[in-house]
């Protein structure tokens, strides 16, 4: 009798262990922290640029409270993040930021339990971020010594292969064209813009430290960049970035001098968006979110998934348009640049070349370049005819959000394989008077005109859009859109 009871209990125990083992294995995480690289430049940026440094402490809070809220309050109304927390961040915490870097475990304890590996990746990369500021802020170091110190930091960063983001550029497909993608930016456009504003500042601040020739110039440059960040908060989301800030666009000098670091930071910031999307997208079941985050982390760490060449990455960064990312972080005009896409628009880029091949979600706005500080007019994107020049004025919110693409298979990332993808219908848009003037001015620029004329699809679409104009305007623009040889004929 006793023997039978013992056997049955043993069997139940064995069954329980068998069933629990996979769960325990999936949840048994052994990641760990490593101390930052000890060096004489430690905390120099904090000591020298306190006003800017403290903003990073506030950013720590903003990132962490975002993830904690998305994970613990999935049914909360959008206003919780878009209004209540956003206001708290921008009116209180950024105004009076914490005096030391924050321990994010204390802010996002439940998120930290969900994906400690991803959190450790972010923490490790944020250490690299901060240590590079220290190097560039250290007036005792020559340029060559700074270069060596940054290289040493990158080498140290890479010693943690289990945490380090790849220093190979990753295509935006990894961020924007996954089944869960875009959920965050569509539900929380303002908060998403704030996060992109943080990222603009985090990579942008390297630039004044690099281009300043003296300590005084660097101080002035950092102050100006800080002021520019505050300017972005004036009328959210319109004044916040419309696209993820790419380091090569925001801080080109930094990206040129330290391309590996720039790529790492772009990958880091992409993954921030990916985690937000996974958490915000209800089509990812709660018991799958950890697995998706871990998978995304692995893809961002390896050197093979969604990789593109450095030249393609530079091209992609350029074609996304610095004016859509908040503009350059130094030598900017007084006004914020005018974006050329709707908020959170998704461009598709050729992974081989980085060239934009179309807009998957959202729209290109009229091609007014007024105030587009830093825009390279020689690199106008080749716009898909169906989505270009819609005639919207200035800042326009996205048209009704694209359907979630949760039905898309993980392996399918091409446009054709995304049935839910929104591509606006092809129709002749009606340009506004302002955009007509802007278009005329643009086409009078010989460089722009040559490029537009070289793009038959764009030219055809623009020609179609002229139908609704007055005869005088139409004639003038038709002349500008007609190749010289054709006119002679």
């Amino acid at each position: 009798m006793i023997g039978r009871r013992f056997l049955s209990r043993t069997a139940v125990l064995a069954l329980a262990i068998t069933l629990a083992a996979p769960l325990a294995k999936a949840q048994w995480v052994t990641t760990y922290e490593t101390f930052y690289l000890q060096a004489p430049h430690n905390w120099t940026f904090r000591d020298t640029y306190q006003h800017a440094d403290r903003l990073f402490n506030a950013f720590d809070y903003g990132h962490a409270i975002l993830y904690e809220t998305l994970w613990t309050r999935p049914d909360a109304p959008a206003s919780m993040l878009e209004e209540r927390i956003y206001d708290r961040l921008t009116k209180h915490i950024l105004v009076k930021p914490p005096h030391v870097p924050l321990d994010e475990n204390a802010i996002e304890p439940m998120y930290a339990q969900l994906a400690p590996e991803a959190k450790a990746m972010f923490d490790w990369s944020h250490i690299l971020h901060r240590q590079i500021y220290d190097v560039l802020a250290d007036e005792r170091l020559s340029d060559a010594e700074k270069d060596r110190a940054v290289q040493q930091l990158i080498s140290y960063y890479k010693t943690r292969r289990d945490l380090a983001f790849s220093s190979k550029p990753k295509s935006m497909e990894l961020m924007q064209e996954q089944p869960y993608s875009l959920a965050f930016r569509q539900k929380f456009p303002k908060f998403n813009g704030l996060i992109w504003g943080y990222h603009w500042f985090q990579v942008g601040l390297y630039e004044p430290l690099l281009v300043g020739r003296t300590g005084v110039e660097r101080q002035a440059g950092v102050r100006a960049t800080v002021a520019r960040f505050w300017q972005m908060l004036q009328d959210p989301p319109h004044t916040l970035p419309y696209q993820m800030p790419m380091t090569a666009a925001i801080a080109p000098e930094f990206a040129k001098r330290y391309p590996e670091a720039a790529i790492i930071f772009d990958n880091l910031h992409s993954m921030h968006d990916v985690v937000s999307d996974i958490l915000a997208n209800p089509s990812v079941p709660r018991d799958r979110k950890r697995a998706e985050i871990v998978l995304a982390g692995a893809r961002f760490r390896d050197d093979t998934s969604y990789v593109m060449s450095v030249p393609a990455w530079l091209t992609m960064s350029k074609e996304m348009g610095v004016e859509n990312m908040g503009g350059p972080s130094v030598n900017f005009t007084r006004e914020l640049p005018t974006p050329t896409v709707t908020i959170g628009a998704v461009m598709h880029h050729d992974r081989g070349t980085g060239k934009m091949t179309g807009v998957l979600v959202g729209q290109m706005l009229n091609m007014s370049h007024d105030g587009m500080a830093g825009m390279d007019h020689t690199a106008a994107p080749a716009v898909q005819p169906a989505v270009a020049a819609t005639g919207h004025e200035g800042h326009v919110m996205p048209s009704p959000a694209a359907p979630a693409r949760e039905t898309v298979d993980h392996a399918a990332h091409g446009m054709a394989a995304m049935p839910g993808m929104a591509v606006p219908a092809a129709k002749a848009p009606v340009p506004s008077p302002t955009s007509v003037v802007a278009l005329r001015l643009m086409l009078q620029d010989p460089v722009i005109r040559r490029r537009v004329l070289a793009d038959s699809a764009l030219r055809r679409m623009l020609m179609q859009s002229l139908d609704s104009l007055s005869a005088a305007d139409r004639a003038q623009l038709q002349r500008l859109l007609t190749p010289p040889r054709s006119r002679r004929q």
Partner: protein
Amino acid sequence: MMHKLILASLLTVAAAPLHAQTDYYNTDAGRPVLIEDAYALERRGLELQVAPVRLSRARGGAYTWGVEPSLAYGLAPRTQIEIGVPVAYVDGRNGGATGISGVDLSMHYNLNVETRIPAFAIAAGVLLPAGRFGPPRAYPSIKGIMTRTFPDVRLHVNAQYTFGDALTSGSAPVGAASQSLELSRWIAGAALDHAIALRSLLLTAEVYARKPLDVTEQVEWNSGVGVRYQLAPRWAMDAGVGRAINGPSQAWYLTAGGAYAFGLPWSAR
């Protein structure tokens, strides 16, 4: 009796099992409460407990001061080693006495990071016989630690067992040593803490029971509260107060200290 109370007050001075970490949120045993979390010092990190001061007052009014400078190092992933040398000053009828209360060596190994599974750690230490107030022989101990985080608080549970022969009160060194927390036969307790993240401030409270190694003494209950604060990126400060609820001394203690974090130089070559 007075002599015994004075010696008993040493327990709060020689509270030795330190496990350092470099920021306010990662608690260390004794800084300011005894019950600690499961996490180890960061790899390659060093932490110097510069001057953790502890003042205790036993029933009868005897005061004891103590300082335990210690150095911890993140030797390997989730693993730290530490050495501490507690120094005590005991107030007595015939004047005070100062002496070392042993040398404390310890290792802390964090098994996992918290997910749905709590974080666990094991620690092993030995209090070596050294100094005027040190134990008569080496006493090894082992400890199990668990940390579970909830939205607003963390719960830490510690259980420690010390090996070695039981002691009897009688001779001064033995009596003193027997009152050391290191020389409890066992300790078991729990702590709750709550972080005020934007201020980098941690509030903590604990309760634990300990069975002295002295076989003549009963289980003693203790409680304590404290704060940890991140003063600067490298500096974490702490302060606490507690008391033994029962037992012969029913001592009060106050503690305050600061830890300085730094790392070792590293080269890619």
